[in-house]
C-alpha cells in the first residue's frame, strides 16, 4: 500500500503516549460505537504509483482525441502557448489556498488583480471579480446582482446557450424567481418580442454575444430596450471575440460575464473552466466572490489584499447575496498568463483568424451541400447549417479523425472553427460532407 502518512510506527507510539492514549482507536471515543464501521470500506486496495499510472493511462487511452475539432458550443479548442503551462505550473500557485494571509500571498493576489484588470479591459467594464465556477454560473450570479425588491423576473433570450439557461433556471428555482425566454427572429433576439415582455417586475435581460448559434446580436439596441423597460442587461460574451467586437461596456451594458475557457484553458471534458464577471462601478459592491484590491502596507509599499469582504458569506452569512468562496483562481491565472503572452495584437490575430476560418469553413460546407440556416446574419466563429443526416455525417468525419459540429434539433448542425483549424482540415471535412450528403 502506498501512503502519504510519514509518521513511523515508533513515532506513532510515542505520539499516542504523549496524548495519554494507547492505540489510534482511542482517538475516536466520541464516535458512538453503533456508527463505527465494522468492516473495511468496499473500495479497492491501494496500489503503488506504477500501477496507478498504468491504470490512468489506460483510462485516458479509452478516450478519442480528435486531431481536428469543429465543435464548440461553449467549449473551444484554441492555441495555448507553452509558456502558459510553464508559468502556472509553479508549485506555490498550485498548492496555495485562498490568499487570506496577504503577506505571504502577494503573488496570487497580484495575479488576481491583473486578471481583474484584463477582464475589465476585454469587456469594457469598470469592475471585475476574481472569477466564479464557469460561464453559466457567472450568468446566474449576474442575474442575482440585478434583483431588486420589486424587480426579480429574469428574461433570457432563446439565443442563449441552453446549458446557461438551464443553470440560470436552477439558481432561480432556489430564489423562487420567475424566468421567461425571449423569442428569436432569424437567429437573433427579436427586439419586437422583447418590448411586451419587459414588465415592471423584470430585473434583467440576459443575452449572449456572439449568441449560441454564432450570430452577432445588436447589443446597442438590446441594451437600450432593456434600460427603457427599467431592467438591467447581462451580456454573456466570448472573451476572444471581445478583441474585435464592440464590447458590452461600449454598448452601455450593466454586467458582462462569460466563459474564460478560450483563454488558455484546455478542453478537459468540461472542467475546470473559468467564469468571469464584470460590471459598472455602480454595481461593484454587488459582485459575488473574492475581489482583490490595491492598497499600501505599513511601510507605504504597494500591496494587494482581498477586499470588500463584508459582502461575502463568511461575514454576512444568510444575508450574503452569494455563498461562493472557492473560485477558479488557477484558471484565472492561466487566462492572465495567456493574455500576457498573446498581447493585444496576438489576441486580435487569434480573433481574426477564428472569424476568417469559420467563414472559410461555412463557405466550403455550403459548397459541399450544407446550406447555412442564417445566411444574412453576421457571425464570429460559429454558425448553423442544415444537416439532414447528422449521425452518418459525424461517423464519416470521425473516420477521418474529425470531430464534426454539434447536432441541433430540426436536422441542423452547429459548427465552429478556430485558429487551430487548418485549411487542409476544412477542405477534408468538406470533402467528407460532399460524399455523405451527395451519394
Amino acid at each position: 500500500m502506498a501512503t502519504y502518512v510519514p509518521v513511523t510506527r515508533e513515532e506513532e507510539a510515542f505520539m499516542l503516549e504523549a496524548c495519554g492514549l494507547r492505540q489510534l482507536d482511542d482517538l475516536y471515543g466520541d464516535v458512538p460505537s453503533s456508527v463505527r464501521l465494522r468492516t473495511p470500506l468496499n473500495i479497492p486496495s491501494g496500489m503503488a504509483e506504477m500501477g496507478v499510472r498504468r491504470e490512468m493511462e489506460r483510462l485516458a487511452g479509452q478516450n478519442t482525441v480528435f486531431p481536428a475539432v469543429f465543435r464548440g458550443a461553449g467549449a473551444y479548442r484554441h492555441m495555448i502557448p507553452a509558456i502558459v503551462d510553464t508559468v502556472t505550473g509553479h508549485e506555490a500557485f498550485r498548492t496555495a489556498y485562498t490568499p487570506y494571509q496577504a503577506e505571504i500571498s502577494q503573488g496570487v493576489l497580484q495575479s488576481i488583480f491583473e486578471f481583474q484588470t484584463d477582464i475589465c479591459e476585454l469587456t469594457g467594464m469598470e469592475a471585475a471579480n476574481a472569477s466564479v465556477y464557469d460561464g453559466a454560473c457567472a450568468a446566474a450570479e449576474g442575474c442575482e446582482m440585478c434583483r431588486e425588491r420589486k424587480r426579480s423576473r429574469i428574461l433570457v433570450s432563446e439565443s442563449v446557450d441552453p446549458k446557461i439557461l438551464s443553470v440560470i433556471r436552477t439558481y432561480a428555482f432556489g430564489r423562487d424567481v420567475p424566468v421567461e425566454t425571449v423569442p428569436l427572429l432569424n437567429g437573433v433576439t427579436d427586439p419586437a418580442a422583447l418590448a411586451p415582455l419587459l414588465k415592471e417586475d423584470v430585473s434583467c435581460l440576459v443575452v449572449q454575444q456572439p449568441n449560441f448559434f454564432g450570430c452577432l446580436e445588436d447589443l446597442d439596441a438590446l441594451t437600450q430596450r432593456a434600460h427603457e423597460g427599467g431592467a438591467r442587461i447581462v451580456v454573456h460574451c466570448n472573451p476572444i471575440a471581445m478583441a474585435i467586437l464592440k464590447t458590452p461596456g461600449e454598448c452601455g451594458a450593466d454586467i458582462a460575464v462569460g466563459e474564460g475557457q478560450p483563454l488558455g484553458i484546455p478542453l478537459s471534458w468540461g472542467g475546470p473552466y473559468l467564469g468571469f464577471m464584470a460590471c459598472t462601478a455602480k454595481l461593484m459592491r454587488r459582485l459575488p466572490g473574492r475581489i482583490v484590491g490595491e492598497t499600501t502596507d505599513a511601510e507605504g509599499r504597494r500591496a494587494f489584499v482581498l477586499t470588500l469582504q463584508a459582502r461575502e458569506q463568511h461575514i454576512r452569512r444568510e444575508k450574503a447575496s452569494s455563498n461562493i468562496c472557492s473560485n477558479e483562481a488557477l484558471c484565472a491565472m492561466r487566462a492572465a498568463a495567456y493574455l500576457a503572452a498573446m498581447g493585444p495584437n496576438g489576441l486580435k490575430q487569434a480573433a481574426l483568424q477564428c472569424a476568417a476560418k469559420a467563414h472559410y469553413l461555412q463557405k466550403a460546407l455550403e459548397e459541399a451541400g450544407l446550406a447555412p440556416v442564417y445566411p444574412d446574419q453576421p457571425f464570429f466563429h460559429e454558425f448553423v447549417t442544415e444537416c439532414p443526416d447528422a449521425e452518418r455525417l459525424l461517423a464519416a468525419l470521425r473516420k477521418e479523425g474529425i470531430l464534426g459540429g454539434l447536432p441541433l434539433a430540426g436536422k441542423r448542425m452547429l459548427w465552429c472553427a478556430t485558429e487551430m483549424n487548418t485549411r487542409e482540415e476544412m477542405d477534408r471535412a468538406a470533402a467528407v460532407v460532399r460524399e455523405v450528403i451527395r451519394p
Partner: protein
Amino acid sequence: MKLIFEKGRPGRGTDYLGPCDVPGIEIGGAKRERPLRLPEVSESEVDRHYSLLARHTHGVNDGFYPLGSCTMKYNPAVNEYAASLPGFTQVHPLQEADTAAGCREVCRRLEGMLCEITGMDDMSLQPAAGAHGEFTGLLLIKAYHRAMGHTGRNKILVPDSAHGTNPASASMAGFEVVSIASDENGFVDLAALQAAVGEDTAGLMLTNPNTVGLFDPQILEITRIVHEAGGLNYYDGANLNAIMGIARPGDMGFDVVHLNLHKTFSTPHGGGGPGSGPSGCKHFLSPFLPGKDTPESIGNVRSFGGNFLVAVRALAYLMTIGREGVPDAAKHAVLNANYMRVKLADLFPMAYDRICMHEFVMSLEKLKEETGVSALDAAKAMLDHGIHPPTMYFPLIVHEALMVEPTETETRETLDEAVEVLRGIWQAAHDDPERLHLLPRTTPVRRPDEVSAARNPRIRYDFEAVRG
C-alpha cells in the same frame, strides 16, 4: 512590485499563431473601438514575472500550512501526472459518449468510491466547489419537499458554530435560516434543537466533526429529532478527513452530503480554486440530482459535468491509498492534531479541552488580556518562521480563536517545530509584546492597510493615472 502592465513596451510580444492560411474577411456587426490595453511583453518577461509572483506565494509545498477547516494536506505528484494526460485534457465535453468512455469511467469509479466512503447511494460530480455542493444539496431538499407536497417546510436549521457558507447556501436556496445554539462543550444544544424543529422544518445542516474540531457524540439523537419532525439531514463534508473510513454520514442519519475533493481528497487548491464539491444523497433523493435525465432533476448547476480534472486527481489519490489508506489517513490526521494540542495546552488555553478530531481551537483571549498580543499578532509572527498561520477568528463562538489543522501528511519534526514556534511567540508576547505588533519582518509586505482598501476600492489597474 511592478504589475505586468507596467512592464514591456508598445509593440513588444511574441507571435504564437503564424500567418493565417485562409483569406482574411471583414465580419459584420459593431466593432470594438476602445483600445485593448493588454500587456505587451516578451515571453521571457512573462516567465520572470510569474516566477517572481511565485516567490511571493506560500503553498503547501513551501511549508507547513495548518489552516483550520481547509485540510491543507500534501498534493501528490501522481495526481498531477494523471491530470496532465492528453487523453483527459484534450477531450471536448460534447464529444459523443463512446469517444469519451475513459472520462465516464473515471467519474463512475470516483462516484462509487465516494458513495462507499460517505454511505450514500448516489453522487453528482457537477458542483465545482464545497459551497456549490451545499447549494446543490439544499436544492435537493427543496425539490424533495415540493415533490412530496410538503408546503410550508421553509426553514433550515444551522448551528451557530457553522461555516458562513451554510446559512448563505440555505438563503440562496430560498430557505429561512434558524440558528441553533451550541452548548458549553461546543456540541448542538439538544433542547434548543428540539424546540426549533416543527412542521416548518425543511432540514438541518451539520458539520461533524464540527467547526471546533469535535465529533458530536449525540449525532444519532440529532438526526433522529430532525427526521421525526419531518426534516432531512444535510452533512457538510468540510471535516470528513477526520472520520473517513471510520464512520459514515449515511450511517449517522444523514440524507444528503457534499464533499470537498480539494480538502479531503488531496487535490490542490490553486490559490483559491478550482475545487470540486460532489453532492451525494440517499436513494430517495437520487432522481433530484443535477445533470440527471429525470423529470425530478433540479437541472444543472454548471455547464458541463463538473471539474473533471479535479475528479481525475481525487481518483488517483483514492487508487493510491485504497481501502487501508483511507482510515489510516484519518487516524493520523487526528493523531497529529491531538499531539500538537497536548504540546500547546499549558500555554494556549483550548476552547474545548478534550480529545479533538483533525483540528483544535485555541483561544488567545487570555494572552491578549495579559500582554495585548492578539490572535492576529500571533498569526503574523508565524509568517516569519515560514509557517502559514492557522485560521483566525473562526469559529465566531470562540474569542481570539486560532484553529489549527495539521493534517496527516506532516512529519513529527514539522509538528514539533511548529509547537516550538508557537511557544516562542507566547514567550515573546510576555517579554516584548510591542515587537509582535510590528511583525512580520521577512515578507515582501507587512500588514497591508485593509481599511483604506475597502474605503476606496482600487480593484483594477488605472492606466489613465499613469499617463496623467
